């Protein structure tokens, strides 16, 4: 695993989250949750700082990170795509939708595109079964997604960032 050097700022962020939870080992899950919220993911170096902050072993932190599917050690894309694989979505063709996302983005589940724009994941039920199959991108929910729409959705986000870039330039 290549070593990442964490910036002093990031280390301070992690330490202050630990302190927020009184540096208690029993708060490990809460700390991980909050740190992932801030940094987007939990690479090895981050887990080491957390272990030190909560006075526990890195092995234990890693154990918890790998137990819960919510936690990830891979950086999420700017636009994290999740395809619902719950029963309703599945029977209404979520697998085909997922296949199309894989083809279009050329990534597997759990991976990110090389430009860091998109990451692809599966989840189980967002509680919008009436709209099955469901795809979420960031906070936004797309309902009744057909494989044919996938290309268009991706393009929309690509253009979105292109126009934003143009604006900021």
């Amino acid at each position, binding site marked *: 695993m290549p070593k990442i050097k964490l910036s002093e700022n990031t280390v301070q962020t992690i330490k202050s989250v630990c302190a927020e939870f009184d540096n208690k080992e029993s708060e490990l899950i809460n700390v991980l949750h909050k740190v992932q919220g801030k940094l987007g993911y939990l690479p*090895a170096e981050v887990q080491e700082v957390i272990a030190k902050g909560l006075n526990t*072993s*890195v*092995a*234990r932190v*890693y*154990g918890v990170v*790998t*137990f819960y599917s919510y936690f990830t050690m891979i950086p999420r894309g700017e636009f994290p795509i999740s395809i619902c694989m719950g029963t309703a979505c599945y029977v209404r063709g979520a697998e085909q939708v997922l296949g199309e996302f894989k083809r279009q983005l050329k990534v597997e589940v759990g991976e990110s595109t090389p430009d860091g724009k998109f990451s692809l994941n599966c989840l189980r039920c967002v509680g919008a079964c009436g709209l099955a199959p469901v795809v979420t991108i960031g906070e936004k929910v797309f309902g009744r997604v057909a494989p044919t729409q996938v290309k268009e959705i991706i393009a929309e986000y690509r253009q979105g960032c292109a126009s934003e870039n143009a604006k900021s330039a």
Partner: protein
Amino acid sequence: MDVINLVIDNKPVVVKKGTTILEAAKGIGIHIPTLCYMKLDDLNIENKPGGCRICVVEVDGRRNLAPACCTDVSEGMNVNTHSIRAINARRTVMELILSDHPADCLICAKSGNCDLQNMAHNLGIRKIHYQGEQSHYREDTSPAIIREVDKCIMCRRCEMMCNEVQTVGVLSAINRGFNSVVAPAFEMNLDHSVCTYCGQCVAVCPTGALTEVDETGKVVRALSDSAKTVIVQTAPAVRAALGEEFGYEAGTLVTGKLVAALRRLGFDYVFDTDFAADLTIMEEGTEMLNRLGRHLAGDKEVKLPILTSCCPAWVKFFEHHFPDMKEIPSTARSPQQMFGSIAKTYFADKLGIKREDLVVVSIMPCVAKKYECGRDEFKVNNNPDVDFALTTRELAALIKISNINFRTLPNEEYDNPLGESTGAAVIFGTTGGVIEAAVRTAYELHTKKELPRLNFDELRGMEGIRKATIDFDGTPINIGIAHGLGNARKLLEEIQAGKSEFHAIEIMSCPGGCIGGGGQPYHHGNAEILKKRQRAIYQEDTKKSIRKSHENPYIIQLYKEFLGKPMSEKAHHLLHTAYFDRTE
């Protein structure tokens, strides 16, 4: 006191509130089978994740079966430990465990000593009705320990030892469901982790998932090489445990047979690590007196307490976890390494052979000794002072392979000059022994008076942390003892915080000291075995005609002929070492 009345297998029983069904049953002689559960009485070591479900029993009025190891008794409970439902459940659980376990028992290192194998036998499993995918994980070989994760049954005993008892924190259950394994952080290999190789995970593993690196083949090859002179040293704790491998009651001393067996195996000289333990006391004791003397004279620079440094797992532990304190432990090498160093200089010279033609083998109760003898600072021109370290278990295997009938062997004596030792040396094998041996010598060297007594009962016992003040003829010396690295950590944190009152502290990594080492015959969770070994060690001490290290005539001769005096330049070069910061 709150008591509970219940019935187990039709027998009424009265126990304290808070007792588990398992313990209540044990009290009336009913043995409920367990697998993941393990308890070492008096050592505060207990593993009861309630994970394996082998110990399930039927309780009247309860819908599901109860795991006996972690279900407390309640008033009026009626327990049936062998109802057809309980037996069937137990057998189903065992079949499910076996369905994801490699069936290579015939060639497994743990065969015959495997709790899983024994349990399958006791439950009468003849067929596995469940077939499906088996989990696979890479094998991990380190200098001392092999992890064969496919054989892991997730009992979590190793994890409990590594985290709760030793506070080393290398092993943890990771991933979930079918993919879960016990592994170091980020699934790195052991030799990249902060593992101390204490081997307590190996000592408690119920299967062949964790074993020591087997070096018996290398030793057999060395013994059959006519160009080599092969000598052997035996650690103190080996003589109090080896007999168990040959059907002797725990705590039977087999020193004479051990020597005879090694001679039959073809070692040219059979020596004793105890000799080197006496040498350790001369060096460590002198260093302790130097530091104490300077401290008592008001020198603020001197670092106290002095910590013992015989235990390689302990050394690696503080190098990883307390590198800021690496100046505090004694610089004295461990007895194993002192022996190797003296053997390949003093003794090789006596024989008139080159160090490369002398092979030094050690028999140790320890797996960390394998790692220790491979450390670079204990090599000269890449030739190690100690070539191979075998565990007590490996020696037993070697004796069995070589068709030696251990029980009919005569008692034989060690060779000289490196085989003579005192009672002070033999007690190195138990917690409290090193410091007691040091006190015997330091007292007499310091006060120039003869000790009024030799047994220091206040330093003995099985409590994790012990404290005593010894009167050095008017000077009170505060001594601390810790066994188990978690206990050691507590004393180290006191020192770090500037709260330590001790002048000297003995630390051994394994619970009980070397008698409970990771390389000893398996105790299978029976702490009584450790206590019997400890008694045997003290018994050996009292049988010795000389019981103080500085009175060992061969040690006196070694200093006269070769080393000069303790802490001399030559002694520094051959018998002392330095420690490294391993945090990066």
